[in-house]
């Protein structure tokens, strides 16, 4: 037992070092903008650049649009699959996993080819970008919503609402949505984190975005990119922590519900 424990600890510590050392070095480096002293000068400079706000703002906009449309797409689809087509679930799940096997570059060129020439020219609009992001976040969004729907008895709740005279709008907004809110939020935060850090789509479709900005100044400056990449990490992490925090609350509520 002791040996196993020791071994596990060593692996764990190696893992921590592997993960945190680069972060720590980046952080340490980002503090050295002023010669001889540690300071937050790099952060001050980074936040002074108007282009930072411009690009960051666009990324937030893309994230919000992606979330909005992917919710409209995923929630009713997942709900319908659960209620009426449970046999189709594996197929839908497989489709949502496509971005894992299709590299983003391939996807982008696909989008450009399809929407760059008639009959449907959309490359001057951000539609291909948002569509790409939706595809990219599909595995996370679908899985979150799917897990939420599986935790409640969708069919019985829907039928109970129907027999009380409810229509579809009421059922979705008052019965389904509130009961999978936590699951939806975790999908939302994951999508937000993904879009905020995404580079390939924005770069190839030439739209302003946080990641492309980061890459751009990375080739010109030394200290501020370090500061900004840490910030990018920070965004992802806070999203993860939010999900954890929400998930804990939900887990407790379910325990109570089951444990009577």
């Amino acid at each position, binding site marked *: 037992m002791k040996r196993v424990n020791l071994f596990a600890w060593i692996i764990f510590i190696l893992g921590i070092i592997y993960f945190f050392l680069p972060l720590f070095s980046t952080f340490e480096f980002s503090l050295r903008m002023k010669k001889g002293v540690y300071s937050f000068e790099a952060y001050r400079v980074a936040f002074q650049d108007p282009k930072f706000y411009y690009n960051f703002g666009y990324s937030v906009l893309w994230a919000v649009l992606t979330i909005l449309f992917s919710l409209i797409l995923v929630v009713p689809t997942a709900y319908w699959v659960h209620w009426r087509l449970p046999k189709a679930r594996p197929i839908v799940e497989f489709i949502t996993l496509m971005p894992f096997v299709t590299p983003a570059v391939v996807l982008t060129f696909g989008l450009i080819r399809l929407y760059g020439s008639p009959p449907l020219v959309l490359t001057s609009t951000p539609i291909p970008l948002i569509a790409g992001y939706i595809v990219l976040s599909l595995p996370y969004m679908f899985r979150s919503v799917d897990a939420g729907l599986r935790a*409640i*008895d969708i069919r*019985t*709740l829907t*039928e*109970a*609402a*129907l*027999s*009380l*005279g*409810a*229509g579809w709008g*009421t059922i979705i907004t008052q*019965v389904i949505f*509130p*009961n999978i809110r936590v699951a939806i939020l975790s999908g939302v935060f994951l999508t937000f984190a993904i879009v905020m850090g995404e580079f390939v789509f924005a770069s190839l479709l030439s739209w302003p975005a946080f990641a492309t900005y980061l890459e751009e100044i990375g080739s010109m400056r030394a200290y501020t990119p370090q500061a900004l990449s840490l910030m990018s990490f920070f965004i992802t992490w806070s999203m993860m922590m939010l999900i954890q925090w929400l998930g804990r609350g939900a887990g407790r*509520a379910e325990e*109570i*519900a089951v444990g*009577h």
Partner: protein
Amino acid sequence: MAFLEINNVSKYFGKTTAVKDFDLKVEKGELVSFLGPSGCGKTTTLRMVAGFEVPSEGQIIIDGKDMTFTPPNQRPVGMVFQAYALFPNMTVAGNIGFGLKIAKKPKEEIEQRVKEMLELIHMPGFENRYPHQLSGGQQQRVALARALAMHPEVLLLDEPLSALDAKIRVSLRAEIRAIQQELGITTIYVTHDQEEALSISDRVVVMNNARIEQVGTPFQIYNFPQTEFVAQFVGTLNAVLAEIVDVKDGLLRFDGQQVHTADKLEGYRNGDRIMVAIRPERLSFAHEGRKANILTGTIKNITFLGSIVRIQVKLGESVFYMDTFNNPYLTLPNIGDPTEITCSKEAVLVLQQQPA
């Protein structure tokens, strides 16, 4: 005209026949239960009345209106499900008032109705509880109140007690029956528990293999089962294949024993083989008083079941159950003892052959 008519309804799911030629008229205020083993089509029939399934053939008529194709949210029907059907995000009041809120009733009226309903189910003051703060039995009572709050014309219950433990099941079924009679609401109650069906129903529909086997009062179903399936499924039963010795006399033979039946043997000839059945409680020891039929055998086993004692008697190849009431002065035979048991002619029931 009956209040609820299920006219020759059939339902097919691909190659599966879930319900076949189901024909039933339910009177206003009647409680009819659908009784049968799992998979026999009870839920599917109920769901067609509720509107969740559309019949492949036949019609559903409620209060004279053809509702075969009416969507569920436009039918005057309330439904109680097996379990977990309360909206977890709403309080008890929110659940009970849900339908009324959708119907855009004024707030005071909803509050008033919720209060009445909570009194009806003996749970006053539970307005602000959430479903997960209630026991299983309380949840089902709230589900009943929610279905009744809309003042539906037909109430449907699909095995509402099967997720609860035995004690609560018995008390809650009595409560459901009392409420149903108080409101005089036309009700269909699905169950696979024969005791439940017999104890709360005005009439019982026994189903098997997508079809109706028999419709009748609990008394008729239990005492005069028409098919072997009904006889076997409702209560315990001794059933044997017997040969007709004399049609006119009602004389039958099985395992070297001869018995008379009071049932008519019309349409049969001497030598035909038929199923006959005798309920365990209609058999008794011959030394306590001889009746028309005497059967001889040996004691195989004795089981003490509380208020009754069940004795297994071996008669040739078959083993019969015999029930006697327990009392402290009962003298029981020993296993292996030879014995004579007896029953009346009326106790020997002739069962219809299963339709091929």
